[in-house]
C-alpha cells in the first residue's frame, strides 16, 4: 500500500478517521442529532450507519446535556464514544456534564475511572447564522483542567488528530470550523496519528511569529503570502491542540523572530490569545522587541448581517496590518 497523499476535503478526512477507528476498535461508537441515516449536517458521519449499524451509530433526541452525559457514562464503563454536538454554541447546555463530570471524574475518584470521551463540534462565524450559531468558545474548555482541546486547520491534521482523540484516555473537545469542511488538502493513505501537544509550522519565516488555529490558519497563510511580496517573512505556527499546548515550538519561534502576532476568531476579551501572550511575555520577555499584537474578534455578539458579521472577526487586512505594526513597532 503506497502512502501517496490524496486530496480530501476536511469533512472527508474526518469521516475516514471515524471509519478507521470504528473498524479498529468496536468500543468506538458515535452519537448525535441526525448523524445516522442523514450523516450529520456536514456529512462527517456519512456511511457509518451502513457499515456499523444502529447500535454504534445513534441518532439522539434533542437532549444535549444528557446524551453528552450518556457518552461520558459510557466512556467511564469501557466505551469510546464520539459525541457530535451540532454547534459549539449548544455546548453551553452540556457544560455541567463536560466540566463538572467528564473533566473531573478521574481526578475525583483518585484515578479509579478514565473518561475516553470525545466531543466533536464546530464553531465560528459563517454566512449569517447569527449570534447563537457563530461563537468561538474554545477559551471555556481551555480554562477547565482535565480537558484536551483540539482545533485542526486542515484535512491532514483533522484526520490525524481525530484518530488520536478517539484513542485518548481522557476527554477531548474536538472543535471543527463550519467554513473548513469543504477545504481540500493532501491526506496520506496510510494510517497515521498526530500526537497531542505537537504544533506545526505551517509556513517558515524569520521576521515575525504568527500564531493562529482553526479557520484563522488559511486566512493567515494568505495574508503571509501577500506580506512576503512586501518583503516581510511571516512564520505561521499552528498549535493544533490548545491543550496541551506546544509551548516550546511557540517559544522557539518567538526567540528567533522576536516579534509576535496572535490571531484568534474568538472575542478578544479573555480569549486563548491572551493566555498565549501571557506565556510568551513570561517566558521570552527578553526576546520581545515590541508588544505582542493580538488580532481577535471584537468584544461583541455576532450580528446577522454579513457586512457587520465580517467586521467582527479578523479578516486578511486586519492580519496584514497587525503584522506590520508588530514588525515596524
Amino acid at each position, binding site marked *: 500500500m503506497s502512502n501517496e497523499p490524496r486530496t480530501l476535503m476536511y469533512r472527508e478526512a474526518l469521516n475516514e478517521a471515524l471509519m478507521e477507528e470504528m473498524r479498529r476498535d468496536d468500543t468506538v461508537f458515535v452519537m448525535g*442529532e*441526525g448523524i445516522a*441515516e*442523514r450523516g450529520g449536517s456536514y456529512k462527517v458521519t456519512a456511511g457509518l450507519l451502513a457499515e456499523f449499524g444502529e447500535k454504534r451509530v445513534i*441518532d*439522539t*433526541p*434533542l*437532549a*444535549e*446535556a*444528557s446524551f453528552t452525559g450518556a457518552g461520558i457514562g459510557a466512556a467511564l464503563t469501557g466505551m469510546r464514544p464520539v459525541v457530535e454536538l451540532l454547534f459549539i*454554541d*449548544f455546548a453551553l*447546555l452540556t457544560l455541567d456534564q463536560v466540566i463538572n463530570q467528564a473533566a473531573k471524574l478521574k481526578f475525583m475518584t483518585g484515578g479509579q475511572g478514565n473518561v475516553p470521551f470525545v466531543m466533536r463540534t464546530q464553531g465560528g462565524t459563517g*454566512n*449569517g*447564522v*447569527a*449570534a*447563537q*450559531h457563530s461563537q468561538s468558545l474554545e477559551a471555556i474548555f481551555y480554562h477547565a483542567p482535565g480537558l484536551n482541546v483540539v482545533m485542526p486547520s486542515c484535512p491532514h491534521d483533522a484526520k490525524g488528530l481525530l484518530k488520536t482523540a478517539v484513542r485518548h484516555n481522557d476527554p477531548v473537545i474536538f472543535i471543527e470550523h463550519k467554513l473548513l469542511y469543504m477545504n481540500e488538502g493532501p491526506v496520506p493513505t496510510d494510517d497515521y496519528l498526530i500526537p497531542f501537544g505537537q504544533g506545526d509550522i505551517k509556513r517558515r519565516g524569520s521576521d515575525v511569529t504568527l500564531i493562529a488555529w482553526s479557520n484563522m490558519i488559511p486566512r493567515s497563510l494568505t495574508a503571509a503570502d501577500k506580506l512576503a511580496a512586501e518583503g516581510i517573512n511571516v512564520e505561521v505556527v499552528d498549535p493544533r491542540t490548545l491543550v496541551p499546548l506546544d509551548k516550546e515550538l511557540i517559544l522557539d519561534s518567538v526567540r528567533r523572530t522576536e516579534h509576535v502576532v496572535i490571531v484568534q476568531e474568538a472575542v478578544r476579551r479573555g480569549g486563548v490569545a491572551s493566555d498565549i501572550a501571557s506565556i510568551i511575555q513570561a517566558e521570552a520577555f527578553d526576546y520581545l522587541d515590541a508588544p505582542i499584537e493580538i488580532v481577535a474578534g*471584537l*468584544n*461583541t455578539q455576532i*450580528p*446577522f*448581517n*454579513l*457586512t*457587520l458579521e465580517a*467586521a*467582527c472577526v479578523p479578516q486578511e487586512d486586519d492580519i496584514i496590518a497587525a503584522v506590520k505594526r508588530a514588525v515596524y513597532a
Partner: protein
Amino acid sequence: MASPVTTQDKTLLASLYETIYTIRVFESEGIKLYRKGLIRGYFHPYTGEEAIAVGVCAALREQDYITSTHRGHGHCIARGADIRKMTAELLGRATGYCRGRGGSMHIADMSAGNLGANGVVGAGTPLGVGAALGTSIRGEDRVTACFTSDGAVMNGTFGEALNLAAAWSLPFVLVVENNQYAVSTPVEQTTRELDLYKRGQGMGVHSVGIDGNDVVTVYDTMQDAIGRCQAGEGPVMIECRTFRHGGHHVNDPGLYLPQDKLQHYLEHDPLTVARQYLMDAGATEAEVADIDARVEASNEDAIAFAIDSPEPDLAEFLEEVEANE
C-alpha cells in the same frame, strides 16, 4: 370539538383565514428570496403549521406575551407584526425589526409582546415562564403563550420550565407544535410515549392533545386555556399535532418524510381547513378571493420595502460595539 360560536363567527373566521394565508405567502415568497441569495443564514418555513400560531394568537389579548422558536415567522405574523419590518429583517436591513442584527432566528417584536424567536431549541420556554412570573408578581391579567416543538419536549428545559409554571400556578400556556420530526429524526425514534401531552399530565398540568391543523380547534382550546389561567388554574399544555409541508429548512429537501404521511397532511392543510370554515360560515368565493389578493399585494409591498431599505451602517455598529466595551 369546534365550538358553534366560533364556527358561526364569520368575521373571526375571515381574519383567521387571512392570517393563515399571510403566513403561507410570506414563507413561499421568502423561500424565493432565499434562493435568489437575498436572504442568508437559516430559514425554517412554517408552511403547514400555520393554524397553530393563528389559532393561539387570535385567542390572546393585546396585553399577553408570546415566545417563539427557530421556526418563528408564523408566530410573529399571527401576533400582528408588520411584514415590512419582518421582510427587512430577513434581508438583514437597517429597517428590520432587529436592525439587521438578528435575522430569521431572532426576530422579535417587543411592541406586540412577542419576546422573540430563538436559535436554541427549547430555550424560549424558561423565558416565557419568567414573563408569566413577572405578570403574576405584578398581579396583572396577562397570559404568556410559549410556542415550542416536539424536539424541545425531549430537552431539559421542557420539564423544568413547565414544572416551575405548575408549582407557581402561573398564567402560562405551553403550545407544543408536534410536527413529528426534529430535522430528519421522527418523534417515534426519540420517545416511547407519542402523546406528548401526557408528560404535562404527569406533572399535574392540565394538558390536551389536539389537531393542530384545525384553526378553530386551536382557537377554542386556547380560549379555554386563557380562561383557566385567568381563574388561577394555570398552566396549560396544548399539544398540537401537525406536519411540515417540506424540509426542515430551505436547503433541506426533506426526502426522509414518508410520502403517505406527507400526502395526508397536504390534504388536511390548515389553509384548506380554514377556508372551508369560512365558506361554511357563509363567505363567498369572491370574498375569499379579495382576501387573497389583499394578502398577496401586501406581501409584494413588504418585499419591495425591504429591498429598497438600506443596509445597517457599519460605522454606527462599530460605535455601538465600542460603547459596550
